[in-house]
């Protein structure tokens, strides 16, 4: 099953449904904001959201009422402060109650790796002396059968859908990532379906390394060209992180009404085509 090129609307409609477990990754870099907005516009509900670093994109999905559960390891607006929509949902149940499952980065990185590797669980040297195992039943310990050493184990992450953003796809549908590549490749390989938004679709990748970070077309479900689709995150070689917008997000998200007004104007009445202008304003 070779990747199909689609519109963002079609990709989300055909891949994501209510109640899915979904991973939208990007470690500061290449966060798929345009795709997140499309999920909000399509009114998808009861999602279990997985992400190492839920930041603005998940704050928006949670505030819009798309999520019932969050699996994460660090939740904040980096360098700015709290995620107010996340906290409002978790602490006060607005707009709906949010359940959380909390891990460390090492646990989630290993769990994605295990998901990509077809394993039921990840085994790692983790959580030693830490308290999360007391409150998270999905952290267990096993013994090395050779040394007797105690090792942490967490279930592999196997999302129904992974959504990521990449710099390029070629006309055959192979996908190229470059720069801070995070856990995106693992998240796609671990998932049943995947949507990849890209800055551009090129004839071919030209003279790249044989060892480039890539996904061949048959390992991907849907590809959508969305220039600027990571804004206010960034796409190395295309545009910079819009740090000012991350700071501006704080007062918007702090207030339910301000958030709803922002959502109405920029998401509900917006579309993926709006992102190109945001890219141009933050050109690298």
């Amino acid at each position, binding site marked *: 099953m070779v990747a199909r090129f689609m519109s963002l609307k079609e990709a989300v409609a055909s891949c994501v449904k209510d109640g899915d477990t979904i991973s939208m990754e990007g*470690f500061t870099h290449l966060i798929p904001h345009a795709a997140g907005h499309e999920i909000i516009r399509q009114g998808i509900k009861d999602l279990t959201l997985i992400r190492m670093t839920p930041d603005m994109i998940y704050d928006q999905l949670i505030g819009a009422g798309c999520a019932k559960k969050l699996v994460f390891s*660090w939740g904040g607006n*980096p360098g700015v402060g709290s995620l107010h929509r996340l906290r409002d949902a978790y602490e006060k149940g607005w707009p709906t109650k949010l359940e959380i499952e909390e891990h460390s980065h*090492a646990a989630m990185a290993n769990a994605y790796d295990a998901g990509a590797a077809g394993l039921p669980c990840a085994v*790692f040297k983790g959580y*030693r002396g830490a308290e999360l195992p007391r409150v998270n039943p999905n952290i267990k310990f096993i013994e090395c059968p050779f040394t007797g050493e*105690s090792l942490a184990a967490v279930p592999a992450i196997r999302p129904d859908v992974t959504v990521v953003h990449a710099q390029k796809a070629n006309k055959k549908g192979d996908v190229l990532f470059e720069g801070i*590549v995070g*856990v995106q490749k693992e998240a796609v390989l671990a998932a049943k379906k995947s949507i990849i938004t890209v800055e551009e679709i090129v004839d071919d990748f030209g003279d790249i390394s044989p060892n480039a970070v890539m996904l061949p077309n048959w390992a991907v479900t849907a590809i959508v060209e969305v220039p600027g689709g990571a804004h206010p995150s960034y796409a190395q070689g295309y545009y910079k992180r819009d740090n000012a917008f*991350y700071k501006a997000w704080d007062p918007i998200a702090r207030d339910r009404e301000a958030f709803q007004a922002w959502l109405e104007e920029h998401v509900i009445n917006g579309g993926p085509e709006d992102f190109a202008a945001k890219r141009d304003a933050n050109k690298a």
Partner: protein
Amino acid sequence: MVEYTPTEMMTVSAARALKNDDVCFVGIGMPSAACNLARLTHAPDITLIYESGTIGTKPDVLPLSIGDGELCETAVNTVAVPEMFRYWLQGGKISVGFLGAAQLDKYGNINTTVIGDYDNPKVRLPGGGGAPEIATSCGEVFLVMKQSKRGFVEKIDFVTSLGHGKGGDDRASYGVDTKGPSRLITDLCIMEPHPVGKQFVVTSIHPGVTREEIIENTGWEVEFADEVAETAIPSEKELQVLRELHARTAKAHGDQQ
């Protein structure tokens, strides 16, 4: 006469703790400023690693997030995040982890998860991120944090990351063979763990700070070493480099000066 703020004194002291041949896993915020100050002064060859996968990065401005483009563009190499946590951190390749905290106890155990009860927190903090494994896998851990009764507590509300546990040999009882917190740098002083009990002991006081100030800003009973040094004040070079770094950073992030 050189003028400086307590935060500058803290950052400079933290930077000095790093050696030129260290491989340092850098937390965001205060650790990032200290590590880059070290790189720009006495430790030009230090390897700085951020959990976004950037190895040997030399940012010209401080990153706002742990994965700013600047980190990758100036790095020797950038690896996937699972590789970072598996081969480099867990693989024992990192000599120093540099961490901050929301709450800290006298054994260097760290809370960055919740204030209050886990299920019904007074304040929900961002969470552990990389810290639980940075705290156990790095050769040693430096902590940097502004001193206050609220932050320096007798008992932390949640043990996000292990320090010396309950003190003494407790850390090793978790199967951890790394050194753990070996230095705590604050805006008032420097503390180091007692060689046996592992509780923090004040070993150096920043110029102009009194013992009373330290005691007033600490939630546990403060211990002072038999011989307490006075921290050397920031040099003009250190201050100049730090201030230029902050100025470049503010400009790059679009802050109003």
